[in-house]
C-alpha cells in the first residue's frame, strides 16, 4: 500500500516535470519579449517596446494580415466542403466509399515537406504559380481531411431515424439537413472549423514553399527573420502567435472532447 502511494506521487511529479519541459521554453520566450535588453541579458527589465515596434514593421503586419485572411477563407471553405462531404459519406452507401475515406489519410500522414514541394512543382507546372492563391489552395487541402474526420466523428452519434422522422413529417432534403442534422452536428462543425483555422494559421512548411517575397504568411516571415538573426521583435510576435493558437485549441477542446463527445 505504502509503495503504491509513493509510486503514485512519483508519477504525479513526473507529469509535472513533463509539463515544465513542454511549457518552460515558451514561457521564457514570452518573458524575454518583455525584457528591455535586445541581447536577452539578465537582469530582467520590463518593457513593451518590442510589441510597440511590431506596429512599425510593415512586413510583419502585412504577413499577419495575409495569414489571417488565408486562415479565415480556408476555414469557411473547409467547413462548407467538409460538412457536405461528411454528410454524403454518412447518408449514402456506395461502392468505393471505403476508398474515399482512406484517401483522407495521405494528406494527414505524408510529411508536409513532401506535399509542399509536390504542390510547388505542380502549381508551377500548370501555371498557378506561387503566391497567396497557391497557399490558399494548399491550406484548404491540408485542413479539409481534419474537418471531415471531426465532423464524421460527430455524425456517428447522430441517429439516422431523426432524418427519417423529419421526412415523414413532410420536410424536404434541405429542411431535414438545416433543421435536424446541422443543429446536432454543430459542435463538430465548429470544432472542425477551429481545427482548419489552426492548421492554416500555424502552417509553415507548405506556405514556405508556395510563398513569394511580398506574398507570404506570418510563419514564413518569422522563419526568414530567425535565419537573419534573433531579435526580441520575433519573440514578441511569436508570443502573440502561441497565445492565439493555444487559445484556439482550448476553444476547440470545449466544443469537441478528444476521444468522443459525451
Amino acid at each position, binding site marked *: 500500500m505504502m509503495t503504491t502511494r509513493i509510486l503514485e506521487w512519483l*508519477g*504525479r511529479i*513526473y*507529469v509535472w516535470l*513533463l509539463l515544465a*519541459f*513542454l511549457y518552460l*521554453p*515558451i514561457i*521564457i*520566450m514570452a518573458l524575454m519579449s518583455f525584457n528591455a535588453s535586445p541581447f*536577452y*541579458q*539578465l537582469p530582467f527589465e520590463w518593457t513593451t517596446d518590442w510589441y510597440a515596434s511590431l506596429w512599425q514593421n510593415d512586413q510583419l503586419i502585412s504577413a499577419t494580415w495575409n495569414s489571417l485572411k488565408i486562415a479565415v477563407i480556408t476555414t469557411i*471553405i473547409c467547413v462548407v*466542403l467538409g460538412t*457536405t*462531404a461528411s454528410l*454524403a*459519406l454518412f447518408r*449514402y*452507401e*456506395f461502392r*468505393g*466509399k471505403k476508398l*474515399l475515406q482512406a*484517401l483522407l489519410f*495521405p494528406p494527414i500522414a*505524408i*510529411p508536409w*515537406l*513532401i506535399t509542399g*514541394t*509536390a*504542390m*510547388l*512543382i*505542380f502549381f508551377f*507546372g500548370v501555371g498557378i504559380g506561387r503566391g497567396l492563391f497557391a497557399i490558399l*489552395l494548399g491550406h484548404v487541402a491540408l485542413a*479539409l481531411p481534419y474537418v471531415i474526420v471531426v465532423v464524421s466523428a460527430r455524425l456517428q452519434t447522430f441517429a*439516422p431515424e431523426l432524418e427519417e422522422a423529419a421526412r415523414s413529417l413532410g420536410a424536404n432534403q434541405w429542411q431535414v439537413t438545416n433543421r435536424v442534422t446541422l443543429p446536432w452536428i454543430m459542435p463538430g462543425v465548429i470544432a472542425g472549423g477551429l481545427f482548419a483555422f489552426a492548421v492554416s*494559421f*500555424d502552417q*509553415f512548411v507548405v506556405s*514556405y514553399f508556395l510563398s513569394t517575397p511580398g506574398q507570404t504568411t506570418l*510563419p514564413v516571415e*518569422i*522563419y526568414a527573420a*530567425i*535565419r537573419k538573426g*534573433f531579435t526580441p521583435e520575433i*519573440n514578441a510576435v*511569436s508570443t502573440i*502567435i*502561441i497565445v492565439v493558437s*493555444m487559445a484556439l*485549441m482550448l476553444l476547440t477542446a470545449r466544443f469537441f472532447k*478528444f*476521444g468522443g463527445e459525451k
Partner: protein
Amino acid sequence: MAEGAAASRGGLGKALPLLAPAYLWLTVAIFLPLSAMVFFSFMTDLPLTGKPWAFTLGNYAAFFSQSLYLTLLLASLRLGLEVTLWCVVIGYPAAYVLAKVLKGRSREAIFLLVILPFWSNGLVRIFSWAMVLREGGILDAALNAVLPFKINIDLMYSYPAVIIGLVHSYVPYMVLTCYLTLQAIDDSLIEAGRSLGASRLQVLKRVIIPLSMPGLVAGAALIFVPVVGSFMEPRILGGRTGTFYGTVIEDQFVAVFNWPLGAALSFILLAVVLVILAVASPVLRRAA
C-alpha cells in the same frame, strides 16, 4: 429489419454532388501534385523554363551514386529513430500516469495541457528553445547560478539541440496515442494479474505493454515519419550541424533550384514513409 434502412439510403448518384467539391480540391492540391512530383523526378529539367528537357533516370542515379544523399537519408532515419525512442521513454510513463493514476478533472486538465502545445505553432516552439539553449541563455545562466564552478553551456547549433527541439515538438503525440490505448485497458486486468501473484513489473511487461502496443506503434509512426522529413527544426537549432535529408530537399527548391533532383529526393522519402506506414498499419488496424 435493418435491411430497409440500408436500402433507402443508397446511391453514388446522390452522394457524388456532395462529395465532388471536397475530393476535387484534394485531387488538385494533393493527389495531382504528388503524381506530378513523380513525373518531374524523371526529367532533366522543368519543361516550363523554355530550356530543353528529356526523360532521365539521372536524378535517381544521383541519389545512388553520390554517397552524400544516402548518408544524409541514413542520418535523417537515425534522427527519426532517436527522437522516437526519446518520445517513448518520456511519453509512455506520462501517458500511464495520466491513464491509471490521475482521476477526474485533474486528469482532464493535465491531458489537455499536454496536448495543447502540439496544436500550437511548431516553428515558434522550436524558436523558443533558442532562448534556452544558447550560450548565455537561460540554461547556461541557471546552471551557473546553482553550480559552484563556472561552466559554459552552449548547446545551440548542435545535434543535441535538434534532438531536444524535436522531442519537445513530438512527445505530445506519443502521450496522446498511448493514453488512448492505456485508458481502454480495464483496471480489473491489472488487478487480476496481481492477484495471480505477478509483480508490478511483470504485470507491466506481460499485460500492460502488450495491450498498449497499438498506441505505441501509432505514436511511433506519427513521430518517425515527420521527423525524417524535418528541415526547419535542424536549420534553426542545428545551424551548420543541422544538415539532414530534409534540408537538402529544401535546398533543391529554394537555393539550388534543381527541382527534378528535389522531386526525386522527395519521392524517395515518400517511398520510405509509405514503407514505414505499411509496416505499422496491421498493428494500427487492429487498434481501430
